[in-house]
């Protein structure tokens, strides 16, 4: 009989396995928590960084329009207005267009073209936003300046009330141009989600409607839309979240003027454009803190929109078990 305390090979293997599991499981846990820490870190750093500005200007930060680094007066309103206005224009254009394309892809498209067009749209959703920005600056802006804006000024610009939105000189760049570029940029993204949502409608349901003699439009209107309403709204809101926070596509063409004009043809700015333009050069503390304050507003705005969208899509997934 040996009185040794040495462990049997199996026991050592078990112990090693236990150690391996502890290390691997611990790392996995730690990295999953990292995701939570990152989001918390973003909130804390933005709030902490913008405190000097919030303390100096208080609520006025949200509602004043002056943005002047020289006199150290900072109000976020022009940037907030620009962000909301460009995103609204983008949505007004992109929602009907993406809706039409999604109907085309799910109901009208010949099967042969379905995959190539679908793939092309998904690839375009991956094109970096700076590409849309550079195209907007060099190609779209001249067209806006020479053709579209003069036409708008001459026609809608003459109508009372609505005409106020379309007045002034045609600069080419401005709020409207930024909104159009944004709409082009979110379009592929919006279409690919809307199409996916449309396709969660079971074939039997759709085909039963066709079998009863419904037209394509009636199937879309009475079957697909009621069935996928929540998902479609979710898709639109995700795209809105993207448009609100988009930087490069907008910075090139918005004009970067911190002011609010009644006309959407005039230059303006957005939160993201102001950050891209001024942040690296912001010297003094108050300017930096005000820019971080803009970042905080953008963060709250986009996360409210994206959070709602995700909750809607989550509800849809639980309801139908699809992706």
């Amino acid at each position, binding site marked *: 009989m040996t009185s040794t305390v040495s462990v049997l090979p199996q026991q050592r293997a078990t112990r090693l*396995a236990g150690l*391996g599991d502890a*290390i*691997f*499981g611990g790392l*996995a846990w730690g*990295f*999953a*928590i*990292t*995701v*939570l820490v*990152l989001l918390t870190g973003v909130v804390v*750093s*933005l709030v902490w*960084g913008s405190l000097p500005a919030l303390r100096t200007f208080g609520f006025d930060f949200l509602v004043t329009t002056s943005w002047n680094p020289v006199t150290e007066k900072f109000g976020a309103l022009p940037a907030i207005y620009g962000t909301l206005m460009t995103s609204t224009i983008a949505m007004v254009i992109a929602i*009907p267009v993406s809706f*039409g*394309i999604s109907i*085309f*892809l799910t109901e*009208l498209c010949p099967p042969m073209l379905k995959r190539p*067009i679908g793939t*092309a*749209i998904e*690839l375009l959703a*991956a*094109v*970096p936003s*700076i*590409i849309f920005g*550079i*195209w907007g*600056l*060099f*190609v779209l802006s001249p067209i806006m300046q020479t053709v579209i804006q003069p036409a708008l000024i001459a026609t809608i610009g003459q109508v009372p009330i609505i005409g106020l939105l379309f007045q002034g000189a045609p600069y080419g760049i401005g709020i409207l141009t930024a909104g159009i570029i944004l709409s*082009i940029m979110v379009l*592929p993204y919006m*279409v690919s989600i809307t199409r996916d949502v449309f396709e969660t409608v079971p074939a039997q349901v759709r085909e039963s409607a066709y079998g009863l003699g419904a*037209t*394509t*439009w*009636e199937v879309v209107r009475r079957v697909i839309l009621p069935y996928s309403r929540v998902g479609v709204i979710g898709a639109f809101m*995700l795209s809105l*979240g993207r448009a609100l*926070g988009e*930087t*490069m596509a907008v910075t*090139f063409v918005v004009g970067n003027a911190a002011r609010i004009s009644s006309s959407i043809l005039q230059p303006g700015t957005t939160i*993201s454009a102001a*950050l*891209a333009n001024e*942040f*690296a050069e912001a010297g003094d503390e108050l300017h930096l803190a005000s820019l*971080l304050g803009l970042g905080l507003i*953008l*963060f709250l705005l986009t996360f409210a929109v*994206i959070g709602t*969208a*995700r909750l809607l899509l989550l509800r849809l997934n639980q309801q139908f078990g699809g992706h």
Partner: protein
Amino acid sequence: MDAALVRTRKRRNRVVAVLSYAVTALGLLILAAILWSLVINGVSAVSHLTLFTEMTPPPGSKGGLANAIFGSLVMTGLGTLIATPVGILAGTFLVEYRRGTAIAELVQFVNDMLVSAPSIIVGLFVYTMLVLPFGHFSAFAGAISLAIIALPVIVRTTQDMLLLVPNGLREAAFALGAPKWKVITTVSYRAAFQGLLTGVLLAVARISGETAPLLFTALNNQFWSNDLTKPMASLPVTIYQFAMSPYADWRSLAWGGAFLITFAVLILNIGARAIAARSRS
């Protein structure tokens, strides 16, 4: 009366169909126009080989994008190297360790939020964490902000791909007495390998064109730099700077850079799709 109703319904349907065709044509036309101007303006810039060998020039003179291309490769590479293990393990945690629990749902929800978060916000965050305390911009801070953007993409795909691995495989390995970490690394990862690779490639594609988070982390550098603690040039930031300038040479280089990035992103996406398609068949 019935015939009239049928006519109205048909007419309405035709109107919608025509509108639908029209907006699809319009959408494809605009997107084709963007690619077209990219090719027209980009190819002439890329066809000069000096684009790949010379540094970014001072205003008004000829040059290339060598330092910006190098900087983009370094920061994208480093960002991917950091995000890949973290993202894959975090995704593993969600599927292999805590599937269906409250903590997994929370992490998944937060991760989905991060996927759609504005990238400029990530730049602000990294600025306050890694630039402000050290007092200078650095390529390392740029790489970290790219890693933060790549991370949620990798977590998401890892999670989706591991969920597709049949439980029978795992149970068979457990029955042989394999410890959990071994089951995960040799069975789950191997079964999902192509899917995981797809996720990483998509993440690389996503960050290689990111501009906003680099603007105030890595900043820019007119010269070649190997130093991770110094500002470093990158293609997107250089494109931004050059395109906004009034100099024709700079603008032409900006188009060249835009062409290169789009090309790289499309190749990465097509590659990822090909891998995903092969693993499915």
